[in-house]
């Protein structure tokens, strides 16, 4: 390995833009606002920042440090890096997960990327003026083939097929060009463009005021309130069992007046204030906040460890890691947090938005197209928004390919072009499976659930334990601080050694308890298996099993091609008096 000529980054700015490009994606502009609105607005933000400090940043720095150290030993793929820096060949098997995650996520992420390009193109050349939400939903369902397997494969402007081919080729052309001429060059232009486009849309959204004077309660101010108020006034209704269930949130004086009148007339309804403290006592809120930090910062993803392995001994990684994380947080909180939800509330009101839904796809591909339909110059802003999502998606998907390429180069001892060709074939097969089995997005959804909820948390936990306990926290900090422009505060030694691993284990436990075993944190709720578990074990579904099989096969392929353990045995010290 040592005699192979290594690639490297061209500049510090370049690597920061590439890592932040990897982190900034659809999650910043669509998933984050949906999560904040769903889990208590301002209350969610407290849990979010705690997760950023106690989980996100520690794993981020650990990955940067271990990756760079592995790179210095001549390795660029996670299995080899973990084995080489710890001199424990068995840890190659943990590293398998760090290659499986980005490769499998790429298989479905590139399909979502194609949706974004399809929307941007349709805003330029097609008719995207929808009068009703059902029309926007129908357009989305037809484009992605949600009604029937294979129906997404049309090659016209209203189907995703042609866009899928275009984005797949674009990704592989860029990755073919290499680290500096492909990934870094693209991110150097794409990231500033993304930021400018995002700020243009932000200014437009914040100046919407009250778009429809017939609905004076539907304002940007109320949209911001729905998003950021830490305590909530909610209208609750009594269900058949006599339990109070939340119906909707009340965000303005007019709605409050109506709600008070409604409650006075009906004993089955009541108004209640949910305090920030009450919301923070919900374990689901903390799980959601930690999950958002994971997806958002791309930690436990296998990308940072590979990217940082292309850095040099004297390169700073502490400031670079923090800068990449801060760029991601800026895009997420300061931009993403002010666009989607406030705009949707300004046009449809809180109940209207609740009717459409708060999931990533509901907000992005159903609610926002309706907003752009009604907004002045909406077609232009629609194009800009989906072009922004497309750029964010490309910078992320590029990063998902590099760990696989580094692994193939290393384990099969082949050059970049050969490994790009092999990986291209593998992910093309996986993506074709996701694209074809499009009905109800079963394939995409199943892959996403098991990879992001299980594998990412397992990998992050393993990585932080390796950094703090196997390598040792003192040596780990020494590795991180080589060439560092700033120092990691000492408090993070304790955090990374005890708090982060414990929190990650707790998250994994809570996820298993609620999402796999089906128990609820709400004592009144009965046990109910999630559809993902049901699809595998209760009412077995072939497509779901194929998704799990695809993950397992990818892992098996990687496992069978690991470098032999002898590559990582410590060199015995030379005997005294022996010939040099």
């Amino acid at each position: 390995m040592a005699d192979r000529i290594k690639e490297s980054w061209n500049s510090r700015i370049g690597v920061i833009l590439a890592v932040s490009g990897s982190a900034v994606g659809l999650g910043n502009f669509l998933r984050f606002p949906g999560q904040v609105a769903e889990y208590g607005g301002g209350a969610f933000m407290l849990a979010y920042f705690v997760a950023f400090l106690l989980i996100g940043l520690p794993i981020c720095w650990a990955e940067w440090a271990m990756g760079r150290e592995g790179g210095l030993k001549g390795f660029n793929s996670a299995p080899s890096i973990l084995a080489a820096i710890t001199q424990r060949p068995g840890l190659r098997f943990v590293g398998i997960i760090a290659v499986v995650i980005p490769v499998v996520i790429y298989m479905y992420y590139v399909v979502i990327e194609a949706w974004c390009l399809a929307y941007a193109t349709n805003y330029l050349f097609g008719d995207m003026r929808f009068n009703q939400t059902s029309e926007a939903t129908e357009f989305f369902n037809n484009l992605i083939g949600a009604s029937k397997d294979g129906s997404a494969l049309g090659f016209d402007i209203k189907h995703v097929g042609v866009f899928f081919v275009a984005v797949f080729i674009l990704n592989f052309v860029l990755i073919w060009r290499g680290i500096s001429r492909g990934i870094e060059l693209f991110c150097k232009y794409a990231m500033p463009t993304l930021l400018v486009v995002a700020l243009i849309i932000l200014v437009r959204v914040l100046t919407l005021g009250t778009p429809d004077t017939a609905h004076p309660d539907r304002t940007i101010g109320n949209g911001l309130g729905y998003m950021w108020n830490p305590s909530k006034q909610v209208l609750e209704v009594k269900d058949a069992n006599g339990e109070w269930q939340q119906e909707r949130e009340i965000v303005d004086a007019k709605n409050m007046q109506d709600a008070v009148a409604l409650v006075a007339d009906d004993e089955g309804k009541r108004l209640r204030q949910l305090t920030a403290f009450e919301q923070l006592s919900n374990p689901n809120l903390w799980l959601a906040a930690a999950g958002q930090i994971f997806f958002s910062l791309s930690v436990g993803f296998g990308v940072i460890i590979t990217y940082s392995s292309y850095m040099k001994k004297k390169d700073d990684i502490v400031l670079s890691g923090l800068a990449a994380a801060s760029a991601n947080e800026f895009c997420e909180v300061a931009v993403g947090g002010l666009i989607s939800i406030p705009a949707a509330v300004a046009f449809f009101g809180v109940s209207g938005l609740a009717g459409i839904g708060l999931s990533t796809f509901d907000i992005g591909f159903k609610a926002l197209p309706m907003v752009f339909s009604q907004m002045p110059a909406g077609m232009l802003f629609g194009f800009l928004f989906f072009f922004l999502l497309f750029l964010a998606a490309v910078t992320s998907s590029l990063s998902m390919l590099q760990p696989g390429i580094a692994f193939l180069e290393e384990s099969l001892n082949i050059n970049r072009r050969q490994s790009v060709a092999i990986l291209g074939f593998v992910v093309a097969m996986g993506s074709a499976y996701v694209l074809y089995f499009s009905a109800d997005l079963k394939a995409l959804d199943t892959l996403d659930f098991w990879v992001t909820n299980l594998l990412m948390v397992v990998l992050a936990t393993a990585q932080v334990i390796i950094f703090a306990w196997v390598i040792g926290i003192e040596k780990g900090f020494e590795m991180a601080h080589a060439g560092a422009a700033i120092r990691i505060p000492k408090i993070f030694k304790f955090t990374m050694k005890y708090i982060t691993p414990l929190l990650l284990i707790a998250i994994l436990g809570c996820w298993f308890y609620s999402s796999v075993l089906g128990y609820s944190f709400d004592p009144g709720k009965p046990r109910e298996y999630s559809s993902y578990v049901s699809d595998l074990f209760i009412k077995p579904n072939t497509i779901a099993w194929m998704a799990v099989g695809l993950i397992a096969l990818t892992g098996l392929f990687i496992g069978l091609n690991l470098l032999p353990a002898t590559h990582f045995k410590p060199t015995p010290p030379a005997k005294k008096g022996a010939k040099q």
Partner: protein
Amino acid sequence: MNLSGWLVMLFSIGSVVSLFIWCIYKVLTIPKETEHVHGFEQEPPDMQ
């Protein structure tokens, strides 16, 4: 939006904007920028 909502929003956005600006400032003002190994016009080593 109520007063506490304004406070949470301003604190959240203020924090991430300040951190982002500070990081950009530090990255741009630290003199030892990584040396330019090769330009974009040049083939990466393993593709030559």
